[in-house]
C-alpha cells in the first residue's frame, strides 16, 4: 500500500511537470521515440529480408538434399539462390547416370529421387524466341518442388517410359513466348530442333531459373541434347525432416562406392538455411548497433533537459527537503521523471514502428519480434536511468539551505 502510494505520487508528480512543459516534454521524448523507432524498424526490416529469403527457399521444399558433381554450391554456379544449376561450373566434373539413380532409390529414407539434366538454351515458339533453361527431370520433380499448376497438367511415368515430346513451362517463359502465361498450354515449342507439346504451365515460384524453365522428361533429352545420358545433379527428397541427416549420410555412402570423395558433394537445404540465418544474425547486430547511436543521442537529450529541470526546480527541491524529503527521495523523484519520460518516448516509438511495419507488410514481410519490444521498453527504461542518474544526483546533493534560499 505504502509503495503503491509512493509510486503513484512520483508518477503523478512527474506528469504534473510534463503538463507544465508540454513542448519540452514532447521534444525530449521525441529523441527517444526516433531512437527506438530506428532500432525497431531496422530489426523489422532485417527480419523481413530474412523472411523473404526463407520463403524463397521454402518454395523448393524444406527437406531437399542436393547431390552435385564437383564440390557443390561452393565450387561455382551462380549466386542467385539455392537452386542453381551447374551451368557456370568449370573444371573436370563427374556426371551422374541412371545407375546412380537406381542405387540411390534403394535407400529407404529417400522418398524422391530426381535426376536433373540442365541446360541454358534458346527456346522458340511460332513467332518468338527466348533464352530459357531446359530441365530434364522425372515426374517426381513436381511433387518434390510442391509445384502448382497455372494451366494444364504435368507429365507422368508413362511419358518418361515413352520418351514423349512434352514440356511443362515455367511461368515467365510461357508469358514471354505467348504473351499470357496461361496461353502456353496446348501450344508447341521448339528446342534444339525438337518440337515439344506444352501440356502445362506452372504458377510463378519466385525462383528465377524455375520460372524460365521448360521442364521435360529426362528420357526425352537422351535423343539429341544429352546423348551421354548423364545428369548434372540429382535432387533427393525425404518426407520427414528427421530423416534428412540419415538420408544424406546413406546417399554419400552409396555414391562413395563409385566416386571419390571430392568428386561430388551433398548439400542439405537446411544447411544453406542455417548459413543464411547466421549471416542475418550478424546483419541484425550491425543494424541494431547503428540504430543505437540515435538512442544514445536521445539519451543525451534527456540528460540535458534533466539538468535544466534540476536547476529550474532548485526551489522546489529546497521546499521538499525542508518538509522532510531525504536525498534519496529527491534522487528517486528525478530518476522517476527521466524514466517515465524516456519510457513514454520508447512506447510511442514502438507503436509507430508497429504501424509502419503493418503498412509495409503488404509487400514486404517485415516483422516485429520480442527483441524489438524488449529494446523499446528495456533500453528506453535503461536510458532513463542511465542518463537521468547524473542530474538526479545533482538534485539530491544540493545542500538544503542553498536550495531553499534559491530564487
Amino acid at each position, binding site marked *: 500500500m505504502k509503495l503503491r502510494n509512493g509510486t503513484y505520487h512520483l508518477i503523478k508528480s512527474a506528469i504534473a511537470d510534463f503538463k507544465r512543459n508540454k513542448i519540452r516534454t514532447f521534444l525530449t521524448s521525441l529523441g527517444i521515440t526516433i531512437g527506438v523507432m530506428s532500432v525497431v524498424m531496422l530489426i523489422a526490416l532485417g527480419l523481413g529480408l530474412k523472411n523473404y529469403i526463407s520463403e524463397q527457399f521454402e518454395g523448393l521444399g524444406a527437406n531437399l538434399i542436393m547431390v552435385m558433381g564437383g564440390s557443390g554450391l561452393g565450387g561455382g554456379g551462380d549466386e542467385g539462390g539455392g537452386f542453381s544449376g551447374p551451368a557456370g561450373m568449370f573444371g573436370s566434373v563427374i556426371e551422374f547416370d541412371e545407375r546412380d539413380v537406381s542405387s540411390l532409390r534403394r535407400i529407404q529414407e529417400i522418398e524422391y529421387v530426381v535426376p536433373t539434366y540442365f541446360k541454358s538454351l534458346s527456346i522458340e515458339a511460332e513467332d518468338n524466341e527466348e533464352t530459357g533453361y531446359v530441365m530434364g527431370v522425372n515426374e517426381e520433380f513436381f511433387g518434390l518442388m510442391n509445384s502448382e499448376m497455372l494451366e494444364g497438367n504435368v507429365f507422368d511415368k508413362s511419358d518418361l517410359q515413352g520418351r514423349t515430346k512434352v514440356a511443362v513451362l515455367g511461368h515467365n517463359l510461357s508469358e514471354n513466348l505467348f504473351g499470357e502465361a496461361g496461353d502456353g498450354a496446348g501450344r508447341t515449342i521448339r528446342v534444339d530442333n525438337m518440337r515439344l507439346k506444352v501440356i502445362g504451365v506452372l504458377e510463378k515460384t519466385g525462383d528465377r531459373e524455375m520460372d524460365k524453365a521448360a521442364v521435360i522428361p529426362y528420357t526425352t533429352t537422351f535423343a539429341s541434347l544429352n546423348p551421354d545420358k548423364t545428369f548434372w545433379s540429382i535432387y533427393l527428397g525425404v518426407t520427414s525432416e528427421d530423416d534428412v541427416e540419415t538420408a544424406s549420410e546413406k546417399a554419400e555412402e552409396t555414391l562413395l562406392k563409385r566416386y571419390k570423395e571430392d568428386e561430388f558433394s551433398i548439400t542439405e537445404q537446411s544447411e544453406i538455411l542455417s548459413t543464411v540465418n547466421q549471416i542475418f544474425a550478424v546483419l541484425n547486430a550491425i543494424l541494431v548497433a547503428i540504430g543505437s547511436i540515435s538512442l544514445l543521442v536521445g539519451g543525451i537529450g534527456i540528460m540535458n533537459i534533466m539538468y535544466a529541470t534540476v536547476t529550474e526546480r532548485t526551489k522546489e527541491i529546497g521546499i521538499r527537503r525542508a518538509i*522532510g524529503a531525504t536525498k534519496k527521495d529527491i534522487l528517486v523523484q528525478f530518476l522517476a521523471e527521466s524514466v517515465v519520460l524516456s519510457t513514454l518516448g520508447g512506447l510511442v516509438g514502438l507503436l509507430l514502428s508497429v504501424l509502419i511495419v503493418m503498412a509495409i507488410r503488404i509487400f514486404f514481410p517485415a516483422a516485429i519480434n520480442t527483441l524489438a519490444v524488449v529494446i523499446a521498453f528495456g533500453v528506453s527504461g535503461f536510458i532513463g536511468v542511465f542518463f537521468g542518474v547524473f542530474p538526479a544526483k545533482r538534485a539530491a546533493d544540493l545542500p538544503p539551505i542553498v536550495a*531553499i534560499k534559491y530564487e
Partner: protein
Amino acid sequence: MIKLKNVSKTYFLGEEKVKAVDNVSLEIKKGEYVSIVGPSGCGKSTLMYTIGLLDTPTSGSVYIDGQDVSKLTDEELSHLRNQKIGFVFQSFNLINKFTALENVLLPTKYLKDKLDFDPQERAEELLKQFGIWDRKDFFPNKISGGQQQRVAVARALIMKPSIILADEPTGNLDTKAGHEILDLLSDLNKKLNVTIVLITHEMDIAKRTKRKIVMKDGQVISK
C-alpha cells in the same frame, strides 16, 4: 526542547568574513511562544535555518530534545524535519504545480513509518479549521496571499510537529491578513501547546509573544 550552545555561522566572501550568527547560546522550552526580533541582516533567518536543521553551524552545537544534531546523518535530519519541525516562510513556498490540498499532504509522503492518522482526514480538518476548505483544489497562484499562508501553516502542521518555525510569516501580507495569521499561530500555541518561534523585524509583532529574543549583528543582546 531546543538548545543552542555557542552557535556561530560565518560566511567567507573572499577576504571578508561575515559573522551572520555570532556565538549564540539560548534555550527554548516546550510550548513556548518566542519571537526573534532584530533589524534586517542581523542573522535571524540564519539562526532559524540552523534551528530548523536546514543549515549547519560553523561552530557550536544545536540540541533538539537533548539530541546533538551534529551527530545525525542527512537522512536522520530529514526525518527530524519531517516529524518534529514545521516551517512557515515569508514567501509561502508552496509548490505551484500542486493544489492546496496536495501541498498540505506533501509531508506525509516522506514519512517512512506508518502514519498514526489518516492524512486526508487531517488535511480536511486543518483546511476547514483555517476556513480554506473551499479552496482545496485551487493552485497556489489562484488564491490570495493570506490563503496561501494558511495552506502553508496547514502543511507545517500536518505531521503534528512539536516546533513551528515561522520566518516573517506576515511579511508579504496586508495588516488584516497578517493579524489573522498571527492569531492563528497564537491559537495553536495555546490550544495545542506547539512550540512556536516567530521571526520578525517589527517590534509590534514581537510584543504579541510572551518572550522576545533580540538580535543585533549576529549576537543575541536580550533573551
